[in-house]
């Protein structure tokens, strides 16, 4: 059991390390001198080596050990980074990855045969690079990594603030002595001097002390020993000495507080710039660091140093995340949800109590409810993850595809920190892969062609994620050849989708690409440069409750914009009654509602019914008939809800429109299976279940059976 748990931790850790490795290696390709990235690869290899050894994956451990040596050479600048070396390291990464994956599937012996040959290659790299100093190469590894870590994990960190009385020299004390003494007892990590009370030179009295200090020290001696240093100055109330144990902020010798602080704040803390200067540059729409550099307020070295520290801090802090089984999260979410439902019920009961009792209760029930909702929100947030990992995978894919197709492509990632629901992240991978493959395969031209059209030989694909208007946007744009709207229009005419003299807007034309079988047509794909299966992409995205749009300019490039709901878990729903049953329609799809009367209802061929919406007629779906619900009355439903299923607008006939409410939507597949036309279940205030309608599914369910309406539209 324990071993199992260890293995689980190992596998998920390995996955993360491999991802870091891959990402960093690719960064190195464009930025080979970046020492902190080299270190990151090195650290990943090292950790991989140790944990593999711990769990008995000897071959993995031995191999990563070799790679670690190789990285050490790079680190110590005995070996310089070339594209070939990066490719070679990526190959190694893939090998390790596949071995880890098969081990995770319970086949630890699969995929190991490739290791000896690869190990030989690594050794060659090692041998070629520095034949003479075999001994020295391995030595720094132990001190550099494991030794270093051990050292830093011991001891406590103290922040000491010292401000002395101005005439301290007259009392026979010298702060410098204190600093020396501290230096003997502890490692002084940083000293900041506060010059703020320093008067103009002419007014300065050399017998006065104008300086104050803030020190950060690390020591394994007890606090009392440190305090003793100040025993003489501390008696005097005019000297302000404070010693604070800040060990909890430090991990592996890195200040983790920096991770979440804006760069500007750190710069102010470190007294490198003033608050005013930061305020000034903040008014410009630029990154703080860049703006400060431009203004000459800070030197590049200083800035790099701070940014480096901040990155280190982030790296260490990242490690401090807790891995939780998603099942446990779901359980927690369920219980919290149930709790809020119970709270609502209790509130309802309380509302019926006599006024003197409710008065006593005051606002307590309300605040309890509010806390409940907040807890629920927080729990939901636990399921959110940054999209960064997904994005990074595409960088690798793009790199490999570009090489294969002899194209030069750069992927620029943005908004990787944007958080998405775990389920969305899992399901967005496929459509994104498809789109990016398309961009690379068909959008971006080969270097020669690009040069001819006056573009830089390197094609650029921008991958960006951000949150706006309560939705998540993912934007993928390339600067390739774009889509030939005219070719698509012609194809649409051929297929009889539009008439010869129809001139739809470009956006409408691109929508044809989502029609099943349309974009697969060879002619279009060769001319327009858009390949197969955009309908599948759209389908996937719609299943997540999202939409996709295409924008393109011939010769300039194409942009795909995907809009997704913030979370799959919570939707705004409209409760409707059909017969004795209650359903939830996602409010996102609802256009309007109307009464269903003879005047606005028409039949086609005596069967299919259409209902009037504005100037047009849309298909009417009787929910009772479609879903097989028994009705007490025989006539049709009195109300219609117009919904948009992306493909078309539909009218849904219902008996009652009850309420609008946010509902937590749960999939039914977990314990049952998928049901056509149903997106999931929601728990109603009385604890019973209401089914959430899936408008796309209903469309499919309906038109799958009923061809008449296809003709109408």
């Amino acid at each position, binding site marked *: 059991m324990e071993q199992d748990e260890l293995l689980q931790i190992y596998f998920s850790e390995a996955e993360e390390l491999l991802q870091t490795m891959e990402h960093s290696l690719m960064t190195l390709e464009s930025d080979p001198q970046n020492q902190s990235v080299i270190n990151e690869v090195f650290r990943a290899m090292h950790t991989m080596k140790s944990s593999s050894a711990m769990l008995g994956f000897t071959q993995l451990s031995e191999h990563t050990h070799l790679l670690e040596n190789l990285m050490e050479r790079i680190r110590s600048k005995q070996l310089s980074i070339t594209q070939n070396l990066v490719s070679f390291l990526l190959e190694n990464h893939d090998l390790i990855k596949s071995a880890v994956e098969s081990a995770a599937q319970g086949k630890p012996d699969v995929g190991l045969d490739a290791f000896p040959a690869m190990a030989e290659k690594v050794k060659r790299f090692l041998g070629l690079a520095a034949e003479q100093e075999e001994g020295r190469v391995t030595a720094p590894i132990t001190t550099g990594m494991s030794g270093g870590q051990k050292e830093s994990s011991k001891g406590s960190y103290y922040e000491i603030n010292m401000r002395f009385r101005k005439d301290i020299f007259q009392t026979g004390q010298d702060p410098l002595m204190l600093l020396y003494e501290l230096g003997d007892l502890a490692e002084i990590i940083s000293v900041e001097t506060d010059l703020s009370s320093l008067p103009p030179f002419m007014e300065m009295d050399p017998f006065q002390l104008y300086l104050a200090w803030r020190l950060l020290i690390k020591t394994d001696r007890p606090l009392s020993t440190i305090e003793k240093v100040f025993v003489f100055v501390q008696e005097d109330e005019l000297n302000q000495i404070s010693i604070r144990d800040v060990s909890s902020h430090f991990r592996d010798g890195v200040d983790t507080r920096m991770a979440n602080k804006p760069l500007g704040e750190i710069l102010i803390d470190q007294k490198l710039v003033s608050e005013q200067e930061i305020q000034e540059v903040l008014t410009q729409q630029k990154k703080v660091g860049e703006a400060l550099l431009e203004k000459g307020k800070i030197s590049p070295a200083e800035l790099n140093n701070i940014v480096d520290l901040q990155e280190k801090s982030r790296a260490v802090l990242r490690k401090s995340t807790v891995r939780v089984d998603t099942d446990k999260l779901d359980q927690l*979410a*369920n*219980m919290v*949800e*149930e709790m809020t439902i119970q709270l609502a019920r209790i509130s309802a009961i309380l509302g019926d109590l006599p006024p003197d009792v409710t008065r006593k209760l005051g606002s307590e029930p309300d605040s309890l409810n509010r806390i409940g909702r907040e807890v629920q929100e927080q729990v939901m947030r636990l399921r959110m993850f940054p999209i960064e990992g997904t994005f990074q995978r595409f960088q690798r894919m793009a790199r490999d595809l570009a090489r294969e197709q002899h194209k030069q492509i750069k992927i620029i990632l943005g908004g990787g920190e944007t958080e998405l629901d775990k389920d969305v992240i899992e399901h967005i991978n496929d459509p994104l892969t498809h789109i990016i493959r398309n961009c690379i395969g068909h959008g971006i031209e080969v270097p020669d062609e690009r040069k001819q059209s006056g573009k830089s030989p390197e094609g650029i694909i921008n991958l960006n994620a951000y949150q706006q208007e309560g939705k998540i946007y993912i934007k993928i744009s390339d600067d390739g050849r774009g889509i030939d709207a005219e070719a698509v229009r012609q194809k649409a005419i051929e297929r009889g989708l539009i008439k010869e003299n129809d001139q739809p807007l470009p956006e409408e034309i691109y929508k044809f690409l989502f029609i099943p079988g349309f974009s697969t047509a060879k002619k279009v794909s060769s001319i327009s440069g858009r390949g197969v299966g955009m309908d599948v992409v759209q389908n996937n995205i719609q299943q997540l409750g999202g939409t996709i749009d295409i924008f393109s300019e011939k010769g300039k490039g194409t942009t795909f914009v995907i809009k997704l709901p913030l979370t799959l878990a919570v939707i705004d729903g409209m409760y409707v009654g059909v017969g004795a*049953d209650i359903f939830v329609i996602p409010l996102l799809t609802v256009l309007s509602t109307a009464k269903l009367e003879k005047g606005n209802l028409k039949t086609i061929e005596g069967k299919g019914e259409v209902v009037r919406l504005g100037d047009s007629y849309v298909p009417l779906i009787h929910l009772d008939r*479609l*879903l*097989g*619900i028994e009705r007490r009355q025989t006539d049709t439903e009195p109300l219609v809800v117009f919904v948009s299923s992306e493909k078309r607008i539909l009218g849904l006939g219902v008996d009652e429109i009850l309420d609008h409410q946010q509902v937590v939507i*749960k999939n*039914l597949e*977990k*314990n*049952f*299976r998928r*049901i*056509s*036309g*149903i997106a999931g*279940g929601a*728990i109603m205030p009385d*604890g*019973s*279940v*209401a*089914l959430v309608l899936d408008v796309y599914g209903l469309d499919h369910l309906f038109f799958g059976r009923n061809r008449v309406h296809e003709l109408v539209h």
Partner: protein
Amino acid sequence: MEEQYITFYLDDEEYGIEINKIREIIGYRRFTRVPGVKDIVKGMVNLRGVIFPIFDLRLKFNLPPKEYNKFSVIFVLEIAGRIMGIIVDTTSDVISLSPAEILPTPRLSPSIRTEYIKAVAQQDDRLIILLDLERILDEKELEELDATA
């Protein structure tokens, strides 16, 4: 080794389920009907935030349907990682059966679906049909439930 079973009635027949298969027994509650599934799926219920389906075994065993009442009970089971409930007329009790009391399934007329019956047990003058739950509600069965597909 004696094993514990929980028994219940469907009409006059007494059935038994290994007690460790049962997560919980809850009272009858209103369930939400699901469109497009076989009759054996009575609907979905919510128990502490978990939504799961309720099956009526009567329909599986070709027994006539019956109105549910306050004696109706739902057994909450976990089979192959899925949570599901079966609704039964009434629980009877918990019994311990020794291996000697468990007999192999007797040959029955072909119209009776014996594949769901693991064995029968005889205790005093009671005959208890021991169900093979994994067989009754396994994944294949669930797929078959899709009447519309």
